[in-house]
């Protein structure tokens, strides 16, 4: 059961998202309306500590659980896909009040109608795959 750790980490992640109200539609509106520091504090502190951890992983050449060097891939340096795709994602984030992780947590937290949102997100992913060659990247 070496996959069990991913389920357990996911459970912890879902609890964390629920208890810190990251999965709240209201929190997302509040963030985009600049009415609270909460979401900025969460994302900001996660990035600062994540960057610190990432820098140490690189400096100390840390290895993962399986003994392989942890290597972080650089993102391809083009721009249209990040700006256009990011903006489209942002539209959906504010409408649903949920990015992909929170969608799943919301289903568990008593909002099963978010299954529809997840199915739509799968359809959106599928549509992107089908149109990929025609889109600027």
């Amino acid at each position, binding site marked *: 059961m070496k996959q069990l750790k991913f389920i357990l980490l996911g*459970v912890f992640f879902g*609890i964390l998202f629920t208890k810190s109200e990251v999965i709240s539609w209201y929190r997302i509106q509040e963030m985009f309306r600049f009415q*609270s520091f909460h979401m900025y504090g969460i994302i900001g502190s996660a990035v600062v500590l994540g960057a610190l951890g990432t820098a140490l992983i690189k400096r100390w050449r840390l290895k993962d659980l399986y003994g392989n060097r942890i290597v972080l891939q650089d993102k391809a340096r083009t721009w249209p896909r990040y700006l256009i795709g990011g903006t489209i994602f942002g539209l959906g984030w*504010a409408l*649903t009040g949920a990015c992909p992780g929170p969608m*799943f947590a919301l289903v*568990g937290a008593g909002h099963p109608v*978010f299954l529809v949102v997840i199915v739509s997100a799968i359809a959106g992913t599928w549509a992107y795959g089908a149109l990929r060659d025609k889109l600027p990247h």
Partner: protein
Amino acid sequence: MSVWEAITGPWPWYVAGPLIAGVYLLLLYFGRSFGISGSLRAMCSALGAGRRVEFFRFDWKGQTWNLLFVAGTLIGGFVGHFVLAGPEAPGLSEALTTWAEERGLESWRTGLAPVELFSWEALLTPRGLILMVGGGFLVGFGSRYAGGCTSGHAISGLSNLQLPSLVAVIGFFIGGLLVTWFLMPHILAL
């Protein structure tokens, strides 16, 4: 404050943020990279999208861990909301709750998503279709187009000082601000 009260929340940002960084780093230690929208692509492949679309012809079984992770996230939502249910009201700002009250959204007191907008009854109304079906579609389309969502770009990408991820996050905010300030008032008035 008792331990139980601290656990049942609401958890402050300075607890949640570092713990999210912990999840990101633990996934790196497990030899994986944090990127939840990747699970949506794997679901497309598992559902057979690869038969028609080349983009989905990849070894989705390598993403099994991500599918298990989101299944865990769903369970975690249940545990967080029902098992660790706290007596406290959400920690939302007064500015937001006033705004919500003025628009008839009373559910801020109890819920995480407003039942006035997100419910089976509301699904086939114009408002419900835009918010749930339209919104979900845009999240799926946009995250794959941008090559990542909040976890892949805002957390993983920015932590690794990736300029493309910063551009993506700026895009997230352009889209989010457009909806919040220009579209949402009209949608709520439907």
